[in-house]
C-alpha cells in the first residue's frame, strides 16, 4: 500500500550556515528497510525542489533506523541572510512527511497516526 512517510517515520531538521540537515527515523525496525530503499538522496532532493538548491548527501545509521540528509544551499544563503520567515529551516523536516512510500500490507500494524 502507498502511505505518506509521516506514518512510517519521524523527522527533525537542523541548521549550520546555509546547510540544512534533516534526519528521518523509522518508527520500527521492520519499516526501516522500506524507508532506506525508497527515500534516496535523489528523490529527497526532487521532493525539496525549489528550496534545496545544492547537492544532497545521505548518511545511513542502521542502528538507529535513521537516514540523515545533508542538503547544501538550502537556507537562502544562511540563517542571517535568509529572507524566509523560517530562516533556520526548522519546519523543513515537515516537508518529507508528505513523501509517498510503498509499504507491504502486512506491516499496517507498524504504522503510526490516523489514516484516512
Amino acid at each position, binding site marked *: 500500500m502507498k502511505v505518506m512517510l509521516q506514518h512510517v517515520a519521524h523527522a527533525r531538521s537542523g541548521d549550520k550556515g546555509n546547510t540544512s540537515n534533516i*534526519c528521518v527515523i523509522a518508527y520500527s525496525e521492520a519499516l526501516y528497510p522500506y524507508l532506506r530503499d525508497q527515500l534516496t538522496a535523489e528523490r529527497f532532493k526532487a521532493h525539496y525542489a525549489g528550496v534545496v538548491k545544492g547537492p544532497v548527501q545521505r548518511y545511513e545509521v542502521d542502528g538507529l533506523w535513521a537516514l540523515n540528509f*545533508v542538503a547544501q544551499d538550502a537556507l537562502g544563503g544562511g540563517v542571517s541572510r535568509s*529572507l524566509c520567515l523560517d530562516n533556520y529551516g526548522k519546519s523543513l523536516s515537515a516537508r518529507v512527511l508528505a513523501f509517498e512510500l510503498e509499504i507491504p500490507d502486512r506491516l499496517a500494524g507498524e504504522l503510526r497516526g490516523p489514516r484516512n
Partner: protein
Amino acid sequence: MKPLIRIGAGSAWWGDRVEPARLNAERGDLDYLCFETMAEATISAAQVRSRRDPSFPGYDTYLDDRMRAVLPACLKRGTKIVTNQGWINPRGAAERIVHWLRECGAPRGMKVAAVDGSLITDRVLELTDRILENGKPTSTLRDTLVSAEVYQGAEPIVDALKQGAHIVVSGRVADPSIFMAPMMYEFGWDALDHMKLGAGNGIGHLMECGAQVTGGYFADPGFKDVPDPWNFAFPIAEVSPDGSAVLTKVAGTGGAVNLQTVKEQMLYEVHDPANYLTPDVVVDFTTARLEQIGPDRVRVTNLSGKPRTPTLKVSIGCTEGYIGEDMFFYAGPGALRRAQLAKRILEERFKIVQLDAEEVRIDYLGLNAIHGAMTPADAPEPYEIAVRVAARTRTREEAIKVGREVDGMAVSGIGMTGKRVPHQDRTREIIGVWSSLVPREKIVPSLSFYEV
C-alpha cells in the same frame, strides 16, 4: 573517583526558559549544572551592540536571572556550574557571578573562573587561510569583519576545575564540550583518549539543546504525543566513568525521554554521523546503542570517537547589509486575489522608488511563506492571508523603503487591507557568519580567577 556523576542542562540558547534550570538545581540532585547560551551569530551581535551601547556588559543578558534562579539551590547541594554565558566578556561575567554568590551567602574563598582566549578578531586574517563555505581567502572579509572567535574545547574548563573553580564561565566553547568538561575532570579522562571523549562529547551533544531531548521540538499530535508539553524539564545525564550514560529528567514534569526523542537529538545539526567534528574529538554516533530502561530513562552506550583534528573551527562575523521586512493582511472570500494584487502593487512600487535590493521576497503567509517553492500547486486557499515582504539591501536607507511602501498600502492600497501601525524598526542589520580553520597550537586559552 565517583562511580557516577549527575549533569543537568540549564539552558540551550540565550532565550531559553529559566524555570527548568531552577527545577534542575532544586530537584535534579546535580553534581554539575551546565548552560549553553549562544547561537552562531551571538558573539558578532554582542560586538555590534557593545560598540553602540557602552552600558552593555558583553555577557548573557539573562545572566542575572539565571544565576538568581539556580545559585541558592546549587550552593545548598554543592552543585558546580559550567556556562558559556561570558560571550565577549567572561571576566565581567565572572565578577557578576561573584556578586550573586555573595548575595546568596556563598562561603568566602569560593572561586569563579573565567575562560578567555576564544576571541581572535585582531589576528584572524593572519591565522586563517580560506573560507570554508566558498573557498575564497579570508582576507576578502577584511573590510566587513566584525568579530572572529575560535570554538575552544573542554580542556581550559577542566583546568579551571582542577584549580578549584566552583563555577566556570567562558566565551565561545563548542556546545558539547561544556557538558563533557565535568566528565573529564571527575573521571580523569585524558584529553587524547578519543574513545572516552567520543562518548562524553556524544552525551554532551544530546544535552546541549536542553528540552530537545526531553520532548521539546518533537510533539506531533496523533503521531508523536508528549505529556504536558507546557511543562518541559531540561535533561539530566547520569554519566559513568566508561562514558555510558542514562538520560532522564526530574520526575513529575511534562515531556518524555524515549528512544525517539534521543534519536532525533542525536542527529540534530549533525552532518556525517560517523564523523562529528568537535574541538576535543571526532564523535562516531553510528556505534551507539540505546535502551529504554524505565519511564523517561534511556541508557546510551557504545558511543565512540576518533582522534581530534589538528585544527579548530573559527567563526567570522561580518556586516553584510540590511533586511527590510513588513507584512499586512487579508481575510474572508477572495483573500488570495486581493493578496495577489497587493503583491503586484508592491512590485511596481519598488520599481517606482528604485529599490536597490540584492533579493526581494513577497510571500502569502498562510499559503507559501514557509515552504516557498515547495508548496503544492493544489494547496487549498486559506481563509486568512498575510502578505509578507522582505528585501536584502546594501544600505539601511534602501531597507527602510520596504516598510515605507507597506505604509502606503494603508490608504493608497486596495480594499479590505488589514494593517499594523508601524510600531517598531522594520529593518535589521545582517551579520553574516563565515567559517575557517586555525591550527590548534595557535590558540592559547587563559584563565582568570575571582573569589567570593
